[in-house]
């Protein structure tokens, strides 16, 4: 068994694709209709055969209250690895991305948290091994 897909729950798949591809820089991998929504995934350009991120609709009634509660407390839904949190923070901020946590040293890891415009906060972190 292996992990090949992980997901973020988004309020609008088209808007999510624009943010995750055009702003964050991920590549669209799969985009096929499934029922009223789409199976829509993106991958890192550094690892196009790696784990796919599913941009999953938040149609379930429990999804939005859950997301809003996380956002209010500043809690990220998931975390992505970057080589340099400070550089990525500057790049994304210049593109108009809203950060709820600017880069901070958290013990061995540097992290920052931004709004994905689709109802989630996302953490970026520099792994301690780098």
């Amino acid at each position, binding site marked *: 068994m292996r992990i090949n897909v992980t997901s973020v729950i988004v309020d609008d798949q088209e808007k999510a694709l624009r943010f995750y591809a055009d702003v964050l820089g991920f590549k669209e991998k799969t985009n096929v209709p499934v029922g009223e929504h789409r199976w829509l995934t993106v991958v890192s350009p550094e690892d196009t055969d790696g784990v796919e991120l599913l941009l999953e609709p938040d149609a379930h009634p429990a999804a939005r209250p859950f997301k809003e509660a996380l956002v209010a407390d500043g809690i990220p839904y998931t975390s992505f690895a970057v080589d340099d949190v400070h550089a990525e923070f500057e790049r994304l901020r210049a593109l108009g991305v809203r950060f*709820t946590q600017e880069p901070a040293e958290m013990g061995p890891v540097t992290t920052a948290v931004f709004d994905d415009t689709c109802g989630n906060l996302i953490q970026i972190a520099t792994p301690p091994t780098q």
Partner: protein
Amino acid sequence: MGDVFKALADPTRRTILDELTDRNGQTLFEICGRLANKHGLASSRQAISQHLEILEDAGLVEARREGRYKFHFINTTPLEPIVERWLKPGKD
């Protein structure tokens, strides 16, 4: 208004104020992350939330909503009477 001295009489709450001095305006998530990773404190998120409530009651922390987010700010105004009472030389 809660008691300022009681609010300060706890090392975790003093550490929260230290971290808000390092950077003012933090989410609950950032405060919890700093306490856990920088100070090795194993308090639950709920416990930190309660510490923040005590600091808010004493007026030492203000929580402000900005859109969908909530940020915490230090407010040192309740500490000024301490300076006035004991630290200012030449006063009656």
